[in-house]
Every structure is written in structure tokens, then in C-alpha cells.
């Protein structure tokens, strides 16, 4: 394109080698330079994109430690983790019993209770309804706990059992279990 636009005065004398090799050399040089410049632009774009990923202070808060000692049997606490509520429930034996006695065939999202807890009495689930993201009720003793004595989502009426599994209502999946580890018998780290 450049060549076609050269001005009337430009072709004074022979611009390129008589055999035309100048033309290929120039094209090769242009391609190399263009490729180099393109790489440069690509490299420049990355810092901008990456700056929108979670910053280091945000990542530092991506794990939360929870002291289990003050949670009595039958009680639950709600902790904030990555901007979302996490339900930590100290289940009395009858609740564990109820959860384990349920046959998998009755479940919409079949999952044995054992696969959802690390220690029988402690249930740790994300307090976000898998339907449309509301926070289910059931943490406080005065809350409705739904038909299965677990949690009840007031938005569209999903019922969860004592293992946080969906039993009735529009939610498709059980309450999610976040990654967590017991750092001591009375402490867990979520995330």
C-alpha cells in the first residue's frame, strides 16, 4: 500500500536493488518490526487486566479462622468469608442421626452426610441458597428451620436438612461446603 502512495517525485533513481531483493528485505523487516511491536502491546495490556484481579490484601482475607470452642451443641454461628456468610453448626447427635438416616434416593442432589463433614458434629456450609443466592434462615433459634429441621430459604421456599442438603423447593443443589481444615480440635480455617 505504501508503495502505491509514493508521491510523484519519489522515484528519482532506482529505489531498490535491480533484482528486486530490496522489496523482500523491506517486507521481512516490516514484518519483524510489526511482530515485535505487537508483542510489546500485548505485554503492556497484561498489567492493566491483572490489576482488576483480586489484590493482595483481598487475597489475604480469603481465609478466615473460626474458634469453635464457644459454640455449644445445637448452636450455630455465621462468619463472613470472602464477602459471603458461612454457617458453622455444632450438631447434636440426633441431627447427625437424622441426616445419616435419610436414604440417598430421597435426595435431589444425592450426597451422604459423611461426604459433607470432616468431623461428625461440625457442619460447615456456605450460607448461600443454590437457587438464586439468598441467605437461608435457620441460624437463630427463633428462625424457621424448614420442614427438615435445617434451613429454610424465604425467597422461594427451599428447604434444607440438617446436613444442608436440598430437600424441597426450587434450589437445584445442596448448600456448598467450602474448603476448610481443622487447625486444632477447636479451630478451623476456611479457605
Amino acid at each position, binding site marked *: 500500500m*505504501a508503495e502505491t502512495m*509514493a508521491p510523484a*517525485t*519519489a*522515484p*528519482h*533513481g532506482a*529505489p*531498490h536493488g535491480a533484482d528486486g531483493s*530490496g522489496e523482500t*528485505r*523491506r517486507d521481512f*523487516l*516490516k514484518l*519483524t*518490526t510489526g511482530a*515485535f*511491536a505487537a508483542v*510489546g502491546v500485548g505485554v503492556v495490556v497484561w498489567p492493566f487486566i491483572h490489576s482488576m484481579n483480586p489484590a*493482595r*490484601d483481598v487475597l*489475604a*482475607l480469603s481465609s478466615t*479462622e473460626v474458634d469453635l470452642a464457644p459454640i455449644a451443641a445445637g448452636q450455630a454461628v455465621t462468619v463472613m468469608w470472602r464477602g459471603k456468610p458461612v454457617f458453622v453448626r455444632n450438631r447434636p447427635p440426633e441431627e447427625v442421626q437424622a441426616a445419616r438416616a435419610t436414604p440417598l434416593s430421597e435426595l435431589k442432589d444425592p450426597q451422604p452426610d459423611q461426604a459433607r463433614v470432616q468431623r461428625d458434629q461440625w457442619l460447615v456450609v456456605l450460607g448461600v441458597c443454590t437457587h438464586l443466592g439468598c441467605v437461608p434462615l435457620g441460624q437463630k433459634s427463633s428462625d424457621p428451620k424448614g420442614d427438615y429441621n435445617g434451613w429454610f430459604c424465604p425467597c422461594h421456599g427451599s428447604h434444607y436438612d440438617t446436613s444442608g442438603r436440598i430437600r424441597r423447593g426450587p434450589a437445584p443443589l445442596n448448600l456448598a461446603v467450602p474448603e476448610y481444615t481443622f487447625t486444632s480440635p477447636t479451630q478451623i480455617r476456611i479457605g
Partner: protein
Amino acid sequence: MTVSLRGFRNLLGALAIGAATVLGTAPAQAAGEAIALPDTRFSFAGFFGTYDRGSLQRGFQVYKEVCAACHAMRQLSYRNLLEIGLSEAQVRAIAASFQVVDGPNDQGEMFERPARLSDRFRRPFPNEAAARAANNGAYPPDLSVMTKARHNGAVYVHALLTGYQDPPAGFTLMDGMNYNAYFPGHQIAMPNVLNPGQVEYADRTESTVDQMARDVTTFLAWAAEPEAEQRRAMGIRIILFLIILGGLTYAVKRKVWADVKH
């Protein structure tokens, strides 16, 4: 070619005058009385400088045991200490040795708990007024970006820490002030805090005043510019890339202009 060269010469001339002016201006901004500082070389100085990890860890120890009694570093969190070569277990232990305020709890009250990695360094005073009240009206400044907040940065901080002397004859020192050879006006509210053997270094380095001042200055320089190592390494790569790209572009320019008689 001469045309462009001529233009280029003009341009370079103008740039040189500009650069000379600016170079002459920047140090002049310090104005006031200029005190010659001792020439201190740090591991992190220069184009290829890096922070000496041992010095950083010793410097943090000096900060923790000496400076932190009065000076906050509010921009730093305990997790940042992972970058000076301490292990996660060590940093967790350091953090846990400090009580920080959290809350409110379910009763609506603030409470204290051991610090975690994500917590900021504990501040010695809750606010500036409290700091002044405890320090005879003087405010111990935050040290997070101290080496960027003073002319001559690290060299100045090191000089200040080693610059406590008896006032020369005829110098009237105000009540509660201390004589320092490198502080502007020579009267500083901060007393000399570094005495030989003040801290016992974990790595058994002898804790002379100069050693402690050097270590804590290194730590403060890192705290102010933790990105410096990454920045310089990236800078070298980018400038090399640009030099090659510049050569290629100039070659293309020569080719394109080759058929223009001028």
C-alpha cells in the same frame, strides 16, 4: 539525512538544557541549610540493587524491639513479612504475639485478639493526639514510606540514626530536645535510641549502632518500596526490548525513506 540530523541536534540541545535545568532544580528544592550527609552504600542502591534479606530481617527486629514503641507503620501488614524471607510459621508467630483490636462482637463491644497475617502492624498509639500526649507534644511519624518522604531517603535516615552527638559549644538546646548532626536545625525531639548491644540479633551479628541503623534503614527502605526489585528487573527487560524495537523501527524508517531523495 543531514536534515533530520540537524533537527535532531536542535532537539538534543533543547533536551540537554532542559535536563540541566531540572537536574539543577531538584536538589535545590531542599533549600534551607544543606547538611552534608555521610556517604552510605546500601545493598539496594543502584540499577541492579536488591535488598539483603539478612539485613531486612535484622532491621525488622530493630523496628519491632526499638522503633515500634513509638512509631507506627500503618501501611504494612504482617503478611508482608513473608517477603523478607521469614517462613509462614515464623510470621504467624510474630503476628500472634501482638494483640489487635477487632469487633464489634455480638454484644457490640470491641475486643482484643492475637493478630493474624492479614492484620496491619499494630500501632503504638490509637491516634495522633494520643501519640503527642505520650511524647511530650512531639508526633513520632509513621515509618511506612519514610525513606521516600525525606530528601536523600535511606542515606538520610541512616545518618540521622547515627548522628546523635553532644551539642557543640554555644549551641542552646531547648528543653526536652536532643542534638543531632543531620537533623535540619539539629534539634530533634526523638532521643538517641540505639546503643551498642541494644538488640540481640538472632543471627549473632554484632549489634553496633551503625549495624542496627543500617539494618533498620534497609528494612524501612524495603517497607517504602517493596516493589523496587521487581520494578528494576522489569525495567531492564523493557528497556532492552525497546532498544531492539527502536533499532528495527529505525531500520524500517531508513528503508521507507530510501527512495526519497532529500
